[in-house]
């Protein structure tokens, strides 16, 4: 099903290269236009003020680079109706900046009137599937464009779940026509936390819908039983086993726009674009291999 236009800005789709998350600290580097990052991603929630420097900088950077909006506040996995005020704010930003991609999470963050400021886990049942599908449909029709949905990192599982995550996500994509954002760190974190194989997850994932990839750092703790408990912290270098998983994924699906996500304990620009260069080397190696085939 292809209900909504992909990449509506004809001249600026996201290239199949590495981009980085844009924070205020990096505005001067982005404006130098060195192309060390091929594109930038922002959290739209940080640009929902009426005016001021955030818009001034994003406008200038948008003139130089493709931009992707990655929402953290829509609560698409929630049981309650979506916040239409928030949808309106997103629409305003999308109309203004014409992002090449817009994505949100398979998670919930709003309960009653409270914003809980985290990406909370969803049980995988027929009932929650219907709710998420309705929310993705509503979002795409409200924004008049396709959205991407991101696989979550989770720390607990629900006894009520009747299907696994891959099946749940595949059904959402098939029923709504949304694209998918595959977060490779999230696959690794969840696989470790729930003791399954991340390669097997990728082998079953509906990769034909994937339009963007995320890479990020995590940290390692232990749960009550002494088992590994990985935290999706976005505050460190991408871990080696996540690079290996990414390499495997790109070999399978080909070069795909890839974002280095880093949200706290921010690194220097040099370290951040070093991670982007690492991703680019993997993308280029597989692009050559595909071309040689």
């Amino acid at each position: 099903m292809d209900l909504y236009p992909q990449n509506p800005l004809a001249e600026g789709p996201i290239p199949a290269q590495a981009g980085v998350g844009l924070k205020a600290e990096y505005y001067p580097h982005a404006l130098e236009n060195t192309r060390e990052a091929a594109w930038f991603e922002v959290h739209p929630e940080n640009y929902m003020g009426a005016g001021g420097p955030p818009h001034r900088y994003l406008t200038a950077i948008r003139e130089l680079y493709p931009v992707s909006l990655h929402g953290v506040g829509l609560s698409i996995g929630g049981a309650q109706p979506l916040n239409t005020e928030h949808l309106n704010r997103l629409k305003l930003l999308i109309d203004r900046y014409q992002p090449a991609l817009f994505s949100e999470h398979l998670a919930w963050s709003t309960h009653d009137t409270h914003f809980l400021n985290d990406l909370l886990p969803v049980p995988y049942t027929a009932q929650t599937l219907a709710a998420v599908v309705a929310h993705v449909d509503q979002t795409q029709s409200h924004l008049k464009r396709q959205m991407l949905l991101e696989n979550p990192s989770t720390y607990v599982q629900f006894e009520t779940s009747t299907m696994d995550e891959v099946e749940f996500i595949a059904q959402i994509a098939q029923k709504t026509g949304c694209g998918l954002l595959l977060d490779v760190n999230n696959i690794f974190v969840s696989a470790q936390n729930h003791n399954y194989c991340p390669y097997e997850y990728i082998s079953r994932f509906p990769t034909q819908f994937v339009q963007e990839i995320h890479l990020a750092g995590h940290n390692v703790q232990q749960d009550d039983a002494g088992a590994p408990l990985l935290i999706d912290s976005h505050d460190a270098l991408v871990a080696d086993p996540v690079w290996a998983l990414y390499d495997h994924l790109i070999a399978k699906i080909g070069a795909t726009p890839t974002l280095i996500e880093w949200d706290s304990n921010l690194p220097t620009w040099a370290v951040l674009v070093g991670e982007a260069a690492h991703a680019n080397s993997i993308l280029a190696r597989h692009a050559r291999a595909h071309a040689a085939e």
Partner: protein
Amino acid sequence: MHNFAAALKDVNMPIPDGMVAWHGHAIDKRFAVYRNNIYAGLVDALAAQFPVTLQIVGEEFFRDMALLYARAHLPTSPTLFTYGADFAQFITHFAPAHEMRYLAEMARFEYMWTCSYHAADAHPITAEALANVPPEVMGTLILKFHPSAQLFSSIFPIIDMWIDHKHECVGSREYRAGQFHHLIIRPQVDVLLIPIAPQAYACVAALYAGAQLGDAMALVPETAPPELAPTMLATLLGQGCIIDFTIHT
């Protein structure tokens, strides 16, 4: 989800049933990740929103205070730069901060600073724009302030303290209580903090509220230096505080 949310909000509530780990053992530490993410994130958001309030009391005091605030006042919007609107009021009633009566005032100012930072953009007019107004109707002029303009008054020298903390030169001058008035405004990129002399304050406040120029000027006390009002008006125009005017006929 209702039980999940309730247990996140109230740390004294038991972990709800229905969640498991693959090995079948306890999930306390796993559930704690969610509880921790929420409140650590909100405390971080407050620390970013109130940087000098934090500097004054130190990291540990601030984080303890912010955590208590966050538990009692969860945000109602995912736009976290609007979070903390009533943090200053919370500090007013926060017993460990009672000795520092200026602390709530600092938080009130820092929230206003953020509001000006994110306020709508508009093009200021220059003094020349008023040059063609006939002198006989000048008194009926109503000035329209920039959308980012806010008046801040305190009995504490909050802005001096804030600037000293920002420039890391605390201790370079003595702070005394008094009457301090400023216009907080962001005509372009930077937030400006324009001091308003106590004798000019009633006049500026009236202009800000939409009074006619003549009526506002009448609020400047007769004891004030004659150049006070014209200088203040020139400052407002020169700094880009005014975006339009109307003549009342």
